[in-house]
């Protein structure tokens, strides 16, 4: 993130944006600032309003309330084409009857860019996305990963400063997803464009984004760096969403020195096994999951949910046996009755 390039006003501003469909949940009170050249991920479970937020930003939907400013210009009710942005769709939305080259230059042609310039820009976009040699193929003749790159090429060819991506990797297999993820991140850095990226996959959001916006039920839960979300979750939802495994939540009454109706968050890596009789909890082992470099051990204890611990290497403990665990107070996250974070 280029903090020094910040002007008076951020690159993109959403101010109290709301969109409602009759009866159906849309989004409420979306306020968000996006710096130029940054990579922002909208993260959340399906139906949380992240795609709606992106579509509002794109101009494919118009908000019922609030305003949207892009590059200092109020675009709240502008058409999508007047917002100087490009978009990568989840389905790629490639024109099936047009070749790769025609797909990529479609927008340039519509905007009457001269032919020579069009050719130059297209070649550059195809080179960046590694699609040279595929110019005359139809989308149906390409693999999923190649189609995805055509969609990317189409998004970057016009050189728009803002690029919106709606779950661009969700149709790819896991292996390809990893490599394309790196490609997209590199592309964004090299071109210096601002990317707003919608995903339900926290690995994608955490690994790519400078800033993650976590949403639930049409509202923003937390805006922050991946570090903030992981180490300083703003509320119990964030705590229970971010991380694999997510934080365990312990009722306050289970521990001394905490308010009885508060919730205490605890990450698996901060839990250790201690000899019987010397731990803070005595738990039952409910399951063991071998992950390769470590083993994830699920624990059960009254008044807790999602309590887990990690052991290095292969360490399969017998299920339904009891062990004692310990953890330090400094690693605890404290949330009040409303689920909001209390400690700094």
């Amino acid at each position: 993130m280029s903090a020094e390039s910040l002007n008076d006003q951020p690159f993109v501003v959403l101010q109290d944006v709301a969109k409602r469909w009759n009866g159906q949940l849309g989004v409420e009170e979306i306020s968000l600032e996006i710096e130029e050249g940054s990579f922002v991920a909208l993260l959340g479970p399906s139906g949380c309003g992240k795609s709606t937020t992106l579509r509002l930003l794109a101009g494919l939907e118009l908000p019922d309330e609030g305003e949207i400013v892009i590059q200092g210009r109020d675009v709240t009710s502008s058409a999508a084409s007047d917002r100087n942005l490009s978009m990568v769709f989840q389905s790629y939305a490639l024109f099936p009857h047009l070749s790769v080259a025609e797909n990529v230059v479609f927008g340039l042609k519509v905007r009457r860019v001269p032919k020579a310039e069009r050719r130059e820009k297209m070649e550059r976009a195809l080179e960046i996305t590694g699609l040279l040699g595929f110019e005359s193929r139809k989308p149906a003749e390409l693999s999923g990963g190649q189609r995805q790159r055509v969609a990317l090429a189409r998004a970057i060819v016009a050189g728009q400063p803002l690029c919106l991506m709606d779950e661009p990797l969700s149709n790819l297999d896991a292996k390809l997803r990893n490599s394309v993820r790196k490609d997209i991140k590199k592309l964004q850095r090299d071109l210096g464009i601002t990317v707003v990226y919608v995903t339900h996959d926290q690995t994608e959001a955490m690994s790519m984004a400078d800033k993650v916006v976590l949403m639930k039920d049409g509202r923003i839960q937390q805006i922050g760096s991946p570090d903030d979300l992981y180490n300083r979750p703003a509320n119990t939802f964030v705590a229970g969403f971010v991380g694999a495994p997510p934080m365990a939540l312990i009722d306050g009454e289970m521990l001394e020195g905490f308010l009885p109706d508060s919730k205490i968050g605890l990450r698996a890596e901060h839990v250790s096994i201690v000899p019987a009789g010397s731990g803070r909890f005595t738990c039952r082992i409910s399951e063991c999951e071998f992950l390769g470099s470590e083993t994830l051990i699920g624990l059960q204890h009254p008044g807790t949910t999602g309590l887990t611990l990690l052991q290095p290497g292969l360490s399969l403990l017998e299920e339904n046996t009891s062990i004692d665990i310990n953890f330090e107070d400094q690693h605890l996250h404290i949330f009040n009755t409303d689920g909001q974070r209390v400690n700094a």
Partner: protein
Amino acid sequence: MAERVNQERRRQAIYGWLLLLPAATLLSIFAFYPTVATLWSSLFSRGTRRRPSEFVGTENYADLFADPTFWLVVQNNLLYAAITIPVSIGIALAMALWANSKIPARGFVRTAYFTPTVLPMIAAANLWLFFYTPGLGVLDQIGSLFGIPSINWLGQPETALWAVIIVTIWKEAGFFMIFYLAALQTIPEDLKEAADIEGASRWTYLRRIVLPLLMPTTLFIVVNAMINSVKLIDHLFILTKGGPSDASKLILYYIWEMAFAFFDAPHAAAMTIMILSVLCIVATIQFFYIDRRTHYQ
């Protein structure tokens, strides 16, 4: 080993032929055999009690080429096709685009457009007879409000064919609309959104994206419309009977007349063969030329 492979291959072949058999039988009895029989009988003269039918080669065809009525009918049919095919397709596309957009009472609009297709052609023709009738007809009633003199739409050679053409378009457009409507619904919504973001106008989107994607449907409809322009003659029986003075007579009606009013089967057979040949040639051109330039999803 080779024995077994051979046996398997033969088994597959028999299996294939058995699957083809039902359709092949029906087509042979009701399409291929009549075609050949028609071709055969078009080569013989008309038999009377005094002069039994004899082989005359292409004489029946030569007679037709010398017959001014035949040429008039061909000309009528060409005009009929040249107007009804593009106009009904154009209207069908326009109606489909409208009925596919987010409009109030969309279901009603779709049903209304499709109604003419549901009506039997004879019933539709009677309906239009009521519109066209001079004096009493709806068209004349409306015309008289504006002081326009009564016009006998079906009764004068200048307007009779046009009146028939309008009925055909009215009947066909709703039918073709259904195909376009179905095709439009297979075009994903996000193509429109992608085009919007790229700055394409509605017109550009229609011309560059929608129409090319509708090409397979258009091809199918064109072939159907063409066949209809030859075979759809039911309304002639009600509206004009080909008149006045053959002004609205179409080829199939003329064939019917030739065979069942004049009892001249050989000439009717000769005309049938000519229609079949022309239809075959045009359909071949359409499928082999246009098909190659069409994108199928």
